């Protein structure tokens, strides 16, 4: 049985197991918020993926230009992508002419399949990573949000993002390829409105995720972002905001986490001890901070610990 066929059977079984009144309730209730002229954001919850939230834990956005709609990220499932597209259509009859993925993580790209393949664009690194890891992402999304993910398949971006400005329908978008949250982050700045879509390089009010992170590159990217004249920052997770507080908070978390784990590894502490360390009070109010800290420890500590070891030769 193919993966897709198996999934179809499993989904059918699950659908059968739930009350009929739930079957048409897979509604993310997406409400676009207008954050600047022509510019809208769907703000997700500061939570982890659960069946209850359907994976709506991420920000996506769109810009309505005279030549069509530019979409930034497509959400965690095809259902989300469909509902996003429907919400856009309630605001404009114009077609979606470009879809940017800020990076390859599942909550940002698994709605891609809703949009014309020829419009979807990301960095070459993000496309390669999604090609390699996408099937696993989909499996995991099914495990976490179950029927919300019905129909979700990977759609790898076909357009390769390059640095520089592009003008679409009177809006000039600057594309910046960056690195830090992943190998292939893409920041989209709309120079016409001053809105910057920075993806998961910035988190606000929710602990950053680090499975593909490069802490030094990430800090360098944040230092670069901070200097830009931007009117509204749209983080990957957390509310859009003016000012650089979210950038600084993300930077502070990476600083603390990196230093904390390095110190722990260098002093011979065991990972099971490090897992139990408390998160500093200044981060303690963030969504899912304890779980995200533990995930980061499990992801990052083994390599740091290994770097402290030296080859022990035979006698």
């Amino acid at each position, binding site marked *: 049985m193919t993966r897709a066929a198996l999934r179809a059977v499993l989904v059918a079984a699950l659908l059968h197991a739930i009350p009929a009144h739930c079957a048409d309730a897979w509604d993310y209730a997406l409400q676009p918020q207008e954050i600047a002229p022509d510019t809208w954001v769907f703000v997700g919850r500061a939570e*982890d*993926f*659960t069946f209850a939230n359907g994976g709506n834990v*991420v920000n996506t956005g769109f810009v309505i230009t005279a030549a069509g709609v530019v979409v930034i990220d497509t959400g965690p499932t095809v259902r989300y992508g469909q509902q996003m597209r429907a919400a856009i259509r309630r605001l404009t009859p114009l077609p979606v002419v470009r879809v940017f993925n800020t990076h*390859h*993580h*599942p*909550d*940002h790209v698994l709605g891609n399949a809703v949009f014309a393949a020829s419009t979807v664009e990301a960095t070459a690194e993000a496309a390669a990573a999604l090609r*390699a*890891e*996408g*099937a*696993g*992402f*989909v*499996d*995991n*999304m099914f*495990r*976490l949000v179950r029927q919300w993910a019905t129909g979700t398949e990977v759609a790898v971006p076909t357009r390769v993002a390059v640095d520089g400005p592009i003008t679409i329908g009177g809006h000039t978008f600057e594309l910046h390829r960056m690195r830090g949250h*992943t190998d292939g982050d893409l920041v989209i700045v709309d120079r016409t409105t001053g809105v910057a879509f920075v993806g*998961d390089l910035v988190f606000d009010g929710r602990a950053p*995720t680090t*499975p*593909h992170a490069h802490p030094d590159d990430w800090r360098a990217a944040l230092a670069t972002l901070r200097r830009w004249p931007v009117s509204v920052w749209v983080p990957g997770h957390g509310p859009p905001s003016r000012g650089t507080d979210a950038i600084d908070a993300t930077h502070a978390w990476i600083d603390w986490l990196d230093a904390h784990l390095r110190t722990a590894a260098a*002093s*011979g*502490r*065991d*990972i*099971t*001890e490090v*897992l*139990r360390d408390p998160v500093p009070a200044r981060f303690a109010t963030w969504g*899912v901070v304890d*779980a*995200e800290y*533990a*995930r980061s420890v*499990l992801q990052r500590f*083994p390599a740091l*610990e*290994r770097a*402290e*070891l*030296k*080859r*022990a*030769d*035979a*006698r």
Partner: protein
Amino acid sequence: MRARHHCSGLAAGLAVIAMLSTAAAADPAADPAVDPMGSAAWADRTRALFGDARVVFDPRVEVLAPKSAEDPLQVPVAVRVDPAIGADRVFVFADYNPIVPVLSFEPRGAAPYLAFRVKLQQSGPVRAAARDAAGTWHVGHTWVVTGGGGCTLPALGRGEKDWETRLNEVSARVWVDALGGTTAARARIRIVHPMDTGLAPGIPAFHLRELRLVDAAGADAMRIEVHEPVAENPVFTVEWAHAAPPLPLVLTGVDNNGNRVDAAIVR
């Protein structure tokens, strides 16, 4: 349980599974036939593992592990046994693994403490049983929720590309006056080994079998009997409570194919 599967998705941003609550601390006086972890087969399990020996739950046997582990192939576990138990042997096992025993260790000069990584087939209890001088097994445990199926992290970057030529290569470090002076010494030891369980089709069991750590004065520090569920490229942390051992430490051992481990740990 070995990572020879096609699943390669890293659960970036994908997170945690509802966590099952860990059971309350066990009481040595509690009915040893009733498992605080709720495993119905516990009575049968204890008979199979411990025969007629007396088995008690004992909070002085601490098993530390993450509540949730996305990568079921590298689940960190530490076992700390209260020295008051006087344990001569500690047996670690995972009830729901197809191969239940994980390892046994015998603390000699080293403290009754060992940290390592384990492969878990599914969510469930990880337990340690420490044997006292009277032959009674004192059992502690924790519950680990795994991401399931080993599919949430990529095989990419895991392990050694050239492991055949580096088989049984040891890297290590010793910390004296470790952890702010609360511990006389700690050693961390990593051994390059695929640790194949034999359960993946076409890949025979190939795993370390025993390890022995001796200090420069010839005093036995720790013996470890290793089973298949210990994770690939095992990492062990050993501790000395009162006095640091004279260096170098000598690590010797063998895998199930007769390949030897032999290394002098000088720092």
